[in-house]
């Protein structure tokens, strides 16, 4: 008996857990417009992506309070691709063909985006991708609301070079496509600015690397050559906490060797004691500490929605905010949710961003954004120390890589091409389009 009830409770537990994993908002009613949310809620990437699911639910709820879209209510369809890249493609297909969503907001890693691209092309739907990425891509069905390298990496390096007088560079990253491409672009950029190759140290580590002793010592030794040194970090996700802990413990201060990170935001700092990290930098297009009315309102809504005053906001959340409002505006402009009509209508659409200005969707399906550099404070927030004077247009094909510098993307008729080669005058220079 004892045994049986034990076994039964175990089964019950399993049922409850799996039930929660598959939870999807109720059955569809006829007069709603469905919006797909494709973010991992379990697995490695859940750490970053769960928040984005929450922010999408909040944005949809807010839009419904304002009366919905085209006279209909919006309905979120949440699926869990479980940090499994092939599953992303399957779940995307399910969202589009089974649920018939009008647009999908989702993906985080470049691998997951690459895995869903063919699905969106084949079924002709829309994907809004909210994360900074390596560029070298422009797709008709995808809207890139995160930063391209020239909207994050290059201004950050400029800041260090001009304001902090950095002459020696460590490019440290996790070993996958985003850091590798970004570092390739940065290396070419630095060399074009006259930095000698021996003043650049490139270092890659595996995902989730936890033993940083050797690398931090190497960085320290590299920085003891008498020239001002900085670390440009494209280290991803979980590996950051032990990296910063090791920096702090080995006594590397931001005044001596500043670290500028492209993947560390408010959310990631939540897991670290930021006391010893004050002064290290991050480059983003948005910080929670931005002073603007739109941002104050956004944070207030977010706290009310989550019921938790300590939840932070971050850059990819702002990207979803911008992307969602752009989609809403484009649908209103087109008068329909038909993907082709929306793709035509959305180019040139301008919506307020959270830093007090307006962001515009460009013909290359990237958006205009300000670039902000922030220093980590001891309360886990960033203090903005520098920002670009105006908005920066996302440059999908980097000007600093030899095989992509002649390429442009323009999805307006008559060009309608994601990789037009201006040197040969032909569409289809590089990539999969």
């Amino acid at each position: 008996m004892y045994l049986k009830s034990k076994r039964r409770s175990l089964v019950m537990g399993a049922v409850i857990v799996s039930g929660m994993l598959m939870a999807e908002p109720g059955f569809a009613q006829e007069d709603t417009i469905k919006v797909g949310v494709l973010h991992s809620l379990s697995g490695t990437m859940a750490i970053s992506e769960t928040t984005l699911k929450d922010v999408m639910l909040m944005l949809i709820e807010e839009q419904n309070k304002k009366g919905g879209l085209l006279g209909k209510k919006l309905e979120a369809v949440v699926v869990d691709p479980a940090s499994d890249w092939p599953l992303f493609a399957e779940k995307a297909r399910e969202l589009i063909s089974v649920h018939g969503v009008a647009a999908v907001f989702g993906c985080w890693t470049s691998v997951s985006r690459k895995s869903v691209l063919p699905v969106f092309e084949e079924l002709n739907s829309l994907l809004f991708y909210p994360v900074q990425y390596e560029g070298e891509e422009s797709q008709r069905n995808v809207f890139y609301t995160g930063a391209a390298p020239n909207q994050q990496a290059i201004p950050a390096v400029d800041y260090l070079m001009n304001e902090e007088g950095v002459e020696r560079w460590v490019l440290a990253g996790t070993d996958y496509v985003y850091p590798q491409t970004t570092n390739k672009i940065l290396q070419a950029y630095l060399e074009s600015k006259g930095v000698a190759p021996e003043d650049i140290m490139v270092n890659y580590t595996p995902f989730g690397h936890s033993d940083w002793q050797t690398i931090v010592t190497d960085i320290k030794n590299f920085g003891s050559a008498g020239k001002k040194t900085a670390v440009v970090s494209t280290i991803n996700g979980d590996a950051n906490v032990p990296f910063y802990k090791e920096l702090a413990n080995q006594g590397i201060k931001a005044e001596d060797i500043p670290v500028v990170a492209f993947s560390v935001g408010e959310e990631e700092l939540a897991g670290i004691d930021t006391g010893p990290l004050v002064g290290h930098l991050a480059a983003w297009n948005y910080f929670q500490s931005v002073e603007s009315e739109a941002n104050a309102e956004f944070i207030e809504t977010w706290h009310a929605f989550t019921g938790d005053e300590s939840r932070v906001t971050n850059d990819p959340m702002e990207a979803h905010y911008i992307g969602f409002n752009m989609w809403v505006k484009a649908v209103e402009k087109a008068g329909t949710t038909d993907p082709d009509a929306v793709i035509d209508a959305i180019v040139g659409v301008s919506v307020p961003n959270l830093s007090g200005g307006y962001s515009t969707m460009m013909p290359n399906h990237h958006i205009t954004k300000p670039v902000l550099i922030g220093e980590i404070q001891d309360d886990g927030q960033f203090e903005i120390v520098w920002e670009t004077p105006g908005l920066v247009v996302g440059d999908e094909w980097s000007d600093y890589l030899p095989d992509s510098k002649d390429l442009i993307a323009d999805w307006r008729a008559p060009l309608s091409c994601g990789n037009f080669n201006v040197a040969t005058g032909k569409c289809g220079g590089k990539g999969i389009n």
Partner: protein
Amino acid sequence: MILRALWMLLLPLLLLPGVARGQDAPLGEIIARFANVEKFDQTEALVRELGATGDPGVRPVLEALAEGNLYVRKVDNAIFIVPGSGKVLKLIDPLTGEEADEASSSALKKVRVNNGLRRLIRDVLSTLTLGAKSAEARMAAADTMFANPDPAMIEALDAAIEAESDPAVKLRMERARAAAVVLSDLPESDKIAAIELLGSLGDRSVLSLLATVEANADGDLQRAAADAIAEIRSVLAAWDAAQNVWFGISLGSVLLLAAIGLAITFGVMGVINMAHGEMVMVGAYTTFVVQGAVHAFAPALQEWSLAFALPLAFLVAGAIGVAIERGIIRFLYGRPLETLLATWGVSLVLQQAVRMIFGPSNREVGNPSWMSGSFEIGQMVITWNRLWIVAFSLGVFVLLLFVFNRTSWGLHMRAVTQNRRMASSMGIRTPWVDAFTFGLGSGIAGIAGVALSQVGNVSPNLGQSYIIDSFMVVVFGGVGNLWGTLLGAFSLGIANKFLEPYAGAVLGKIIVLVLIILFIQKRPRGLFALKGRAVEA
């Protein structure tokens, strides 16, 4: 340059306390101007101006500014030092250092600083603090001067060296002086003496300075510089090797901690426990909860929260382990594939449960102060948290060895693993021994989690990152032998760290993996193979 010359004149005066105090009035005026700064270069100009007064009274203001504790009161634009944080803040007068008032945080505006400013403040302060009371401040001042050597500082340094009583600080001051001498117009013999001093210190940071001397000088001077560089290089090579061994030991201790619980469940019992990593995670989350509770109920004991977390983590993880063994694994003995799948399922359930209770993002587990920072032995840096973890992992190992070899419980455990039926006939209750052994393995994984929360992430994925390494260590070391696990962990750690500088972290890991595969081909039972009948059982 003019500024530096001014220092030279002022410094000897500053070193005599009580002489040459600036007047308070202009200082207050300069400080008051912080209220109107909008850009960093304005703040920078003010900092320089404050430094130029040469008044030691500017120290508290500059230190507060560097730490981000300098605030402007919005109503009357008055400047205050505000230490600490919270809703109601104490305001301290920047000149007198006395408590002036209280204000709410919304009534204050912070004077913003960036890295460049913090650096400038440090430089300005260093010249002011060469004669400071605390040895630490004098040492920092000497180091800053060494980093920016300037011949104009030689006299000031001479005076300071004369007055210095602490030998460590004196050495740093001499180093700074030597660096300045090398760049000065002093006679060649002085310079050569300075170069020899720098060379004998064997310090990496003088290499670039000496390299410039070598490139620009000729004759004896160049030869002296070249000799010094060669001397430093040879000293550094030895230290680098020592440093690598230490890094290897410290990585090995982390591997040992993660693997030692598995050495019991997999090694001794033969259960392939894929949920082992999750036991480590449970231990880490227990630490997080305990730290939160201690913070809430007994803030005075904050520093020792890890001591409370250890037994609790052992109990929580151990209890879960016993539950898993009683609930699932005992039905699956002798069916390794099913055990593997079932425990993997358990690991997913535990991960998702933690994700639902604590949320998917990282949780902050603080380091107590005795586990933060580092100390130096020669040219080698040793961080306190790593040192403690090495000591802790060895402690756990010795404790387990004792339990296994010196207690009756350990005897039962060994008996059951070696010959279950015989042990059973001798009156040992084998099911209970199984449950407790599994509980012990899980509990040890739990306390490993407490230690690992000090070096890594506390997230639902914590366990996954250790499970493969753990299996690698146990298989390499030899299944069923604790000594094998110890040796396996440390040799893998050291091999990894010696490969890393040459091959990089990614390739280094791959090479280690390939080496293990080759080794297992040659010796399928690992480093320490159990011999005799036990193997066949």
